[in-house]
């Protein structure tokens, strides 16, 4: 099959999880004999072939009033690129990812008369609400994407219900396909970490990876830090991610001083090293449609303490591959992190189980096969 992916981010451009998702999915599809073509954003117009995937980049107009206008303007260029390509090769369908892809994906669907599949990675309502005109316009675009799509894919089991309720999507066209992890990428990464840059020899690394926004819950972990240190002075908190870093850094430093470290930009290689070195990762998200961190940590044989919310209800099995906490509850985080740190043998066992479970259930080969199955439904 030859799907045309529309995504505003594709590595090396990465802002959230959509880039990695699209790359892993497209690459795996290509390895299975399909011919995915990707149209995405770039600083200049260019074309490249990577890992069997044809990638086309188009620039955006940077004079847009806001992100919606920016996405609309980018969409016009993406669509023209898609039409140009369609005159040379036949696509089977359009596969759009999240609201920023909706204008281009629906435009191509209507121009080329092709079916469209739409993956919802998160919702505006869940991210930060639909109170302003701007937020409602994004929500409206998300609805429009689900309305126009022949098949809708959601990345979390609970999230599937959220999408159905938010946009009145019928059971017939909604599908749950989890995200996956490219285990080889983690296994092959040479994780020669300069551990001393992050923690002292005797310290146990408690790792947070994610954008520093309320949705990801870094504040709840920071609130729990003093209590964890009372129980376990060996703990050292390493907070990786972009966003409102300075804001959270100020609060955390006030609370626990040198026992927390914000390393700023961390390379993919160092991040894998940190995940392998960490005693435990913590994912204190308030809202998380899927939550890739527990799976990436699992690939590194590290267990995750994560909120019992959204996709993490599935990606963490309590007391088997990690530990669940109550969402937005620093006491619960403190309790579960202390449990894991107090028994390193047990947390190693949790990490081993997590890796085994990822190998059995979250491989891209399987996810790609499910996705092409959805494509077949869309073509019927």
């Amino acid at each position, binding site marked *: 099959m030859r799907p045309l992916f529309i995504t505003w981010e594709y590595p090396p451009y990465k802002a959230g999880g959509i880039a990695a998702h699209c790359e892993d999915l497209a690459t795996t599809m290509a390895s299975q004999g399909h011919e995915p073509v990707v149209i995405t954003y770039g600083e200049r117009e260019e074309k490249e072939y990577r890992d069997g995937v044809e990638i086309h980049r188009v620039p955006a*107009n940077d*004079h*847009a*009033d*806001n992100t*919606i*206008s920016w996405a*609309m*303007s980018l*969409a*016009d260029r993406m*669509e*023209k690129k898609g*039409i*140009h390509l*369609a*005159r040379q090769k036949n696509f089977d369908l359009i596969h759009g990812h999240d609201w920023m892809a909706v*204008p281009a994906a*629906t*435009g191509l669907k*209507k*121009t*080329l*008369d092709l079916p469209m599949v739409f993956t919802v990675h998160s919702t505006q309502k869940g991210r930060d609400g639909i109170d302003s*005109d*701007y937020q*409602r*316009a994004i929500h*409206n*675009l998300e*609805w*429009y994407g689900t*309305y126009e799509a022949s098949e809708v894919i959601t990345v979390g089991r609970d999230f599937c219900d959220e999408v159905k309720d938010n946009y009145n999507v019928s059971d017939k066209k909604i599908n749950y396909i989890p995200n996956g992890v490219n285990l080889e990428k983690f296994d092959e990464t040479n994780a020669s970490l300069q551990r001393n840059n992050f923690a002292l020899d005797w310290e146990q690394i408690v790792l947070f990876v994610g954008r520093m926004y309320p949705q990801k819950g870094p504040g709840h972990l920071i609130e729990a830090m003093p209590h964890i240190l009372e129980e376990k002075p060996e703990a050292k908190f390493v907070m990786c991610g972009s966003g409102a870093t300075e804001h959270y850094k100020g609060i955390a430093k006030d609370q626990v001083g040198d026992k927390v470290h914000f390393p700023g930009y961390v390379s993919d290689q160092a991040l894998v090293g940190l995940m392998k070195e960490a005693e435990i990762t913590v994912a204190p998200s308030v809202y998380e449609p899927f939550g890739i961190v527990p799976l990436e940590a699992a690939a590194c044989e590290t267990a995750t303490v994560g909120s019992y919310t959204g996709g993490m209800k599935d990606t963490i099995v309590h007391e088997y591959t990690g530990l669940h906490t109550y969402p937005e509850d620093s006491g619960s985080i403190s309790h579960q992190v202390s449990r894991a740190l107090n028994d390193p043998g047990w947390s190693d066992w949790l990490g081993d189980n997590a890796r085994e479970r990822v190998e059995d259930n979250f491989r891209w080969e399987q996810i790609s096969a499910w996705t092409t199955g959805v494509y077949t439904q869309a073509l019927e």
Partner: protein
Amino acid sequence: MKVVFLARKFEDGDKISEYVKSLAEALVERGHGAAIIAFDDGAYYSIDKRVEVIRTDLHYEGDSLYSWSMMLNNEMKEKARELLEDREFDIIHANDWSTVPGATAMKEYLDRPMVLTIHSTENERGFSDPNSSLISEMEWKGCKSADKVLVNSEDTLNSVKFDLEVPEEKVKIKDPILDAWPEPALKIYESLINVEEVKN
């Protein structure tokens, strides 16, 4: 000869609507075909029954005229493709920036001649919309893609030439208020059809 017109709205008394209506009625009077694709805003209009008026619905409110128009054009593309591809319409005639995305998509995909009338440019309007830069870019793209650009006045001609960098030979003033109207516009359609025939 069959021409499909794109207009953001179509209602009696609206300047662009009247312009489109005059061309469409002149075409059917002479035994040609004409269809108008416009947003379904429930407005009243009167037109020769031989002109097909296709209203597009849009379930998107947006937060700006720019984003709303971009999504409206997606709906227009579907209707225009059906006319051009399935019912053998020959020419697409867009009106102002708000119908450029649909017209250029059809031009790119089906390789049909495209006429664009710029009734006024964003520069003439004062460049005062938060998305003026994107709107002006859309005008520029439309002029670049169009086979012929029509304007109604000397002022717009100058703006199109200097602000949108349209070469002089591509743009024509065809003022619908003059007596000869709409013959000059119909001649442009004919010349584009003739070029297509030569190409084929």
